[in-house]
């Protein structure tokens, strides 16, 4: 059925895959499984939570460079003043930084847990659909 002189294409292997795919489609029961919209939506949501936690993580690190958009006038134009100021800030907010990091880690654990739950829900949904199909087939047999 397929022809190709392209050296990169193994036509025999492609034909074998094609036959299997077609036979899978023909053999499978008529499915009414809805689109995996729930899973998609949930993953988008979880991804955005993870993105926020990444931003929080980045911002919770110790700052070692003077921001270019603030304080370029004296005395903040002096390198020593900048270094001392950065060290002072790092010292003052040490506890806060630890709190932030702990919160970020907690959030990441939550994200991980949510992902597992979404996977579990998907598996359960699939099982429900399979059961529903089997039952309708059984009902049809009983009616006959």
């Amino acid at each position: 059925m397929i022809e190709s002189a392209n050296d990169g294409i193994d036509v025999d292997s492609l034909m074998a895959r094609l036959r299997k795919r077609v036979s899978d489609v023909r053999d499978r029961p008529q499915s009414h499984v809805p689109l995996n919209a729930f899973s998609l939506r949930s993953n988008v949501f979880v991804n955005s939570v993870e993105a926020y936690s990444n931003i929080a993580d980045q911002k919770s690190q110790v700052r070692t460079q003077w921001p270019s958009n603030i304080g370029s006038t004296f005395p903040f134009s002096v390198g020593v003043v900048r270094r001392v100021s950065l060290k002072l800030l790092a010292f003052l907010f040490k506890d806060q930084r630890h709190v932030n990091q702990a919160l970020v880690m907690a959030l990441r654990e939550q994200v991980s847990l949510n992902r597992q739950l979404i996977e579990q829900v998907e598996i359960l949904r699939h099982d429900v659909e399979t059961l529903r199909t089997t039952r309708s087939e059984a009902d049809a047999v009983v009616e006959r």
Partner: protein
Amino acid sequence: MNGSRSRSPASARIAIVTPWFGPDLRGGAEQQSWQLAHQLAARGHAVDVLTTCSTGFNDDWARNGLRHGSERRGLLTVRRFRVHGRDRRAFERVNTILMSLNVADMRRCVSPVGDEDARLFYENNINSPALYAYLAAEGHTYGHILFLPYLYGPTLFGLPLVAERAYLQPCLHNEPYAYLPRVAETVHAAKGLLLNSEGEYELALRLFGPGIVKKSLIVGEGVDVMGDPAAFAQNVGSFVPSQENYVLYLGRQDPAKNVPTLVGAFGEFRRRQPASNLRLVLAGERPVSYGDTSKGIIDLGPVNEAEKAALLTHACALAQPSTNESFSRVIYESWMSGRPVVVHRQCLPTATAVTRSGGGFVADSTASWAAALERLDFSSRDELDRLGRLGRAYAEDVSSWPAVIARYESAFRTEPKAKADRARHPVRRIVQAVAFEADGGTRVYADALAHALGQGGVETLDASVAEALRRAPEPAIVHESSSSAGNPPPEGATVVYHAAHPNEPASDGVAASDEPAAHSTNGVAHVAEEPAHVFASSPAALREIAERGIHGARFLPMCVDPRSWDNVPDLPLISALQDGKQNMLFVGPIVSIDYLNELLIVFLNYLTLEREARLTIAGSGAIDEEVYAQLFDELRRLELEDRVLVARGLNTQQFQAIFRVADVFISLDESEGYGLELLQAMWFDVPVIAYRTEIARELVGDCGLLLSDKSDLLAVAALAQIVVTDADLRAAVIAGQRSARERFDATEVVKAVLASFVRQREPSEPTEARRSWPS
């Protein structure tokens, strides 16, 4: 350093336009422009650098920290222009939006922000009106003007002022900025594109389409490494590289460089392998520190060249987690130091380089990065050395300065070469005549040939055969078919023979018009004694004239010039078609409901495999109104109105839009046409699945997938799904199509036509009829 100081033939004055220029700037594009300017000057080119008075990327873009005016710097002339004030808050607001966007959500040719925000981004970027005024006034005094990188005001506003002599070296990353409309306009306006790597070229093709193919050249990027080990530093602070087992990250320690992924992966690796002594060393400027010695992460901060060389030489491997690289100098520096690399799979330029060279590993998720680190930790030194050698062999080819500069010179020589080609062909003007009642397809064929000849510097004059006869011995191309009547073509004319009914199906390999026509082969018979003068526009036409005993003709495919797509596609259409659905495409004549019905059934079957899909049927060439109406009836009957887009009378931009987003091109049409749509699909890198007609075998047979049997339409749908979803198969088909389309390229067609005129003056030997193209 390299090359002689003698001035090469291509050395017209060269200007390099870049926002920042200086020896101490660390950014990739800044280093590239510095080194490139010096290397070109050392090679004997007169180089001016046109830049701003801004001191660097990390400083205020509105502050003129450097003196404006012209200065001589070694062999270079550096002209600095004042930057102007800007609304930094407005810029930062839009920039923050752009940086927060996920590149996976970007749609080709669709702006990631609104028009007003995009305008604020351009206008409050680094800008120098004085530089633009200079380009407008003095740009014509330069032979070639090179702009880099793509993202800043000098390129976005400066390049269009001198577009006819402008080369753009975009240093392109797959990032939201690359999707801004003005970036696309600038890319299309440039005379040439110079790319740092194959991966960057692939990215540019994906973003800007096949219109850039003819003007793109991969030049590579030169990388210098410190050669003398005696000059290497022994230690970096308290860290002694030769006594440590470490993976090195070298570069800005910035979230934008995806350093958090590497740090996270290293943490995961340490959890899995707590006994390992492998460390992660971070070297480079950083706004924040990721160092944590308790976790084996050592932050060395900025390092000098001697320290960098020592770190590279003794590292286990270099890690480059960034997804936004157009080249990544550090991976080439690592390879030149004999060390393997680990790069991010989603960064096409670096991933392509690693795949091609075999000099390391690719990884994407945190887990796969951790696995790559484990693999490095478990590998013997010999194995790592072997990978490093593979990388080094590749780097020496891609990133040695003599080779890189030679590629720049070849880009700058393109225009003189074209002129030289023209000089070799004495033909300046050709009279083109169609000797029969031409249908739309033949007219398109003749127009495309005239256009391609025009691109080759040959003027074509449309005329009747009688007019061509009057103008003899002026060179003439006469289009003939079996229905041609009247005057034979002028002596010495080149004849292009067309099949009688190209849009009607052939049966069992018999020509569409196997019944000899009353006035058959007038012109062909006349010139048959000189086979070099006869071409056939399709395999069917070739066979038709061969059956009449005329041998030696050659197949001359329809000219497809991708330069016609070097512009922005229809934006509303391309935006609408990128809604997450897969796009199946058919473009062709709508003259029979049979193959359209089959196509709809294939699509129905496809929907059972992939629920989110769309079929686009675009009428091109002949359209039968009755069949067109029947098609809509079928759509209603099958309840496919919402899933199938039917269109006709599309303009070039609209065709470009539907080809750009297509995932697969399917043609079940059995008629023997010119194969224009197949060639177009091949240019747009859309995998082709076509019924095995003669023209499809000629054009697609060597590269794509032909269907010898379409009785099982579910199997056709399944094949389409495999092609769409199997990345390896898709890549193999596209690679084949790319090499095939080169063989049918318009430049080759023009060469063959012009050669036929030259051969008329030379004695020709009889040749066997050939079906292959080119000779």
